[in-house]
């Protein structure tokens, strides 16, 4: 076996509850491939990670394992502003990418938690999408190619550096949201977009969740250009946030038209204040060490009923909720790890299943994981998914036991 180990210690705690015995930090895709092949030969399991933001979203396992830190694969591979395309190594943080794009007046139109820690490879792997998915789509819609190392060590690429391409099978989008169970992503190619010239938000307070969701529906129906629209319910009350981006005149006109629908007190946020507001909105509902976070998904038509039932459960324990009515998305954050919070988390997970929704337990103490499956009910087609896993990772090297596969 080749010695790839750059940093080795007895036990390294990557995040609370996830430890590995050995970590390597390759500086090339070939290094990733060599390491994974060796792990397979040594019957070891490997946990790939970037910014460590989503490592806690996993089943607990006791398997001895190695960690592969993608933080050594950083930097822009190719960026041509006139083409609006970017190729970047997987360990590069989203904030670093946005900085480079910003210098050319461009951006990735995504809103994600903790962009200074979150890596682009990690983001593709976890498939996270924030409220801007409403109009700008998710990273899945921006992904035009990638390089990856399968669980058997095969280093390959798919897609290209053109914005429209059907040459060969769609492996990049397939890896989006595969949680590092099939392959380790080593670089990604993305479409980028012009940075909007203006950014504005209308924030309106409501007495109850149903009225706020009702207004959100009206806003989305009235203006197809609306960038994002979410309703939050927390101990401070119920708030609707509606965002417009684009040319200054259009943003002002859109915010004005949102305000016409607002029957309650509302305020307006512009430019940096608008951007900061949305950043804090996504950060608050991201996985962290001290709270329970659940992501729920359902059909938009069913989201109101689901959210109202969930609110009744989380209210008494001081929890909070973010609903994107048009996306059918509900994110729940429960404070601390008290017995009451654990009970509320369990009740919400069960509610989701009973109502035909899906859920993932993104962050939770062991007491909750012991009684509520991390990945929700097994998805339809799980046997086919396992067949794909066997093709990509025949020795089950990557994230063994941690995922839904």
């Amino acid at each position, binding site marked *: 076996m080749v010695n790839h180990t750059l940093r080795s210690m007895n036990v390294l705690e990557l995040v609370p509850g996830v430890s590995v015995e050995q970590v390597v930090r390759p500086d090339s895709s070939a290094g990733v491939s060599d390491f994974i092949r060796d792990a397979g030969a040594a019957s070891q399991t490997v946990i790939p990670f970037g910014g460590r933001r989503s490592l806690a979203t996993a089943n607990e396992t006791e398997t001895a394992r190695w960690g592969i830190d993608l933080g050594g694969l950083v930097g822009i591979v190719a960026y041509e502003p006139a083409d609006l395309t970017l190729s970047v190594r997987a360990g590069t943080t989203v904030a670093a990418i946005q900085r480079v794009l910003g210098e050319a007046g461009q951006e990735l139109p995504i809103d994600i938690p903790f962009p200074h820690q979150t890596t682009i490879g990690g983001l593709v792997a976890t498939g996270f999408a924030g409220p801007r998915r409403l109009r700008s789509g998710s990273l899945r819609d921006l992904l035009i190619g990638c390089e990856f190392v399968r669980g058997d060590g095969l280093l*390959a690429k798919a897609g290209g550096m053109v*914005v429209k391409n*059907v040459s060969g099978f769609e492996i990049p989008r*397939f890896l989006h949201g595969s949680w590092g169970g099939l392959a380790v992503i080593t670089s990604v190619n993305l479409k980028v977009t012009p940075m909007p010239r203006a950014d504005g938000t209308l924030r309106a307070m409501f007495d109850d969740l149903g009225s706020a969701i009702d207004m959100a529906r009206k806003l989305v129906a009235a203006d197809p250009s609306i960038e994002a629209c979410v309703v939050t319910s927390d101990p401070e009350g119920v708030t609707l946030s509606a965002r417009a981006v684009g040319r200054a005149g*259009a943003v002002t006109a859109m915010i004005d038209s949102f305000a016409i629908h607002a029957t309650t007190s509302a305020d307006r946020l512009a430019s940096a204040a608008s951007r900061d507001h949305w950043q804090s909105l996504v950060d608050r509902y991201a996985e962290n060490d001290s709270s329970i976070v659940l992501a729920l998904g359902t059909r938009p038509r069913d989201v109101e009923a689901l959210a109202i039932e969930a609110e009744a459960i989380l209210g008494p324990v001081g929890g909070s909720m973010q609903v994107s009515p048009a996306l059918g998305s509900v994110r729940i954050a429960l404070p601390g790890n008290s017995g009451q919070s654990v009970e509320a988390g369990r009740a919400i997970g069960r509610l989701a299943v009973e109502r035909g929704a899906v859920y993932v337990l993104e962050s939770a103490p062991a007491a909750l994981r012991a009684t509520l499956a991390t990945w929700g009910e097994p998805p339809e087609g799980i046997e*086919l998914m396992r067949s794909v896993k066997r093709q990509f990772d025949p020795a089950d090297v990557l994230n063994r036991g941690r995922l839904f596969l």
Partner: protein
Amino acid sequence: MDRQHLLDELERIVGRDGVRHRPVDLLVYEYDGSVDGAVDTAAPTAVVLPQSTEQVSAIVKLAGRANLPVVARGAGTGLSGGAVAQRGGIIVSLTRMDRVIDVNLVDRTALVEPGVINLELSDGVKDHGLFFAPDPSSQKACTIGGNVAENSGGPHCLKYGVTTNHILGLEIVLPDGEVIWTRTAQDGYGGLDLTAALVGSEGMFGIVTKALVKLTPSPVATTVMLAAFGSLEDASHAVTSIIAAGNLPASLEMMDNLTIQAVEPAYHAGYPMDAAAVLLIESDGHPVEVSESVDEIDLLCRQAGARSMRRADTAGERDLLWKGRKMALAAMGRLAPNYYLHDTVVPRSRLPETLEAVEAISRYHKLQIANVFHAGDGNLHPLMLFDRRNPGEVERILEASHDLIHECVRVGGMLSGEHGIGTEKRGYMTLVFSENDLRAMAGLKEAFDPDQRFNPEKVIPTGYMCGEVKQLHLQAMQQEHGIVPV
């Protein structure tokens, strides 16, 4: 299982009216929309026209027992040989499964069967202020199932994305006959995005029997502009500067003079006959956004050398400008009896030099090449005009195609933007993909279809599939008078 037994079994599943097997009935299924000569034709053993998911599943199970390939087919408008039964077997034509089962205005989704025609879906939801965004040129005839298989695009995918961006889930029949629903990435979904793998898999992974598609709200304001240029180079520089300045039009199409010569006399769209190239630029969205962006694009086009600019704000004016573009392929019959349409895609900034290369290829091979394409995406559609009755012309077209594809790949381009690989471009895959890349794609195919039951001999060149030896054996058997053993 002998042929008669097979036909009897098929009739038992779909009824007598749902099975085609006489040579004269099969003839049309030997082709798709591809150029004869660039793509081999092949006859299936039978064509079946199921009307339900259960029937499709039963057909697939029967094909498994008979050890026959299965090829799914929509309207047959594909341009890369994807719907041709290369190894014979059963063609499953999904045109009778053409119901729009449900439209939900809150979810902005439609649940449709695969045989629904693309444009009919959009027309059906127009009164609700919605449309199905992918709009390939064949949208009057092509089906949603075919769009899913090819990951179809169209002029408006510059802003709205291609088919994969509009599919939320699929009901599919797997190669063993099992029926599953796939999902796509969504908050709270702990599973693989099988939908992502299926869209664009050219019928090689599963047969789509229902699709849950996203419907897009119609824009509040739309303006179409026609910019006429004195040279192709000026027009392609205008494309680059429009995009680089931060504009994202709904569509940005280019037509060269040869195309204008074919289109204008036929449809009177108002394209200047003496222009070397025209750009058709559509902006949509919020009225203020559209108005400001149209002014900016107007200025950028003039700075790039536009000789004239025309705006269409009413639906009637817009439709007329679009008519010329949408009917361009049909109008080519005025110039030559046949054309061969390419679909390479290049980085947008390489358009000027690529168009020059196309011109050089045209001169070298003494072929007329018309350009009508999705300039905003860098997706070329060079139309090589010819007359197949002239000896050697098809060969000359294929040689020119070889040069064109190599040139596009040289500047960082890819083989196909929206038409698919099929059999037509399968031989070129090694130009852009390594052995490892192709092995990874073959691995995905084998996870879905270990026996190579669905649409064999497409996309992946020979030699990368584990099951190929088995398939060669099957092929040898089939050659024995259409009789295949169980």
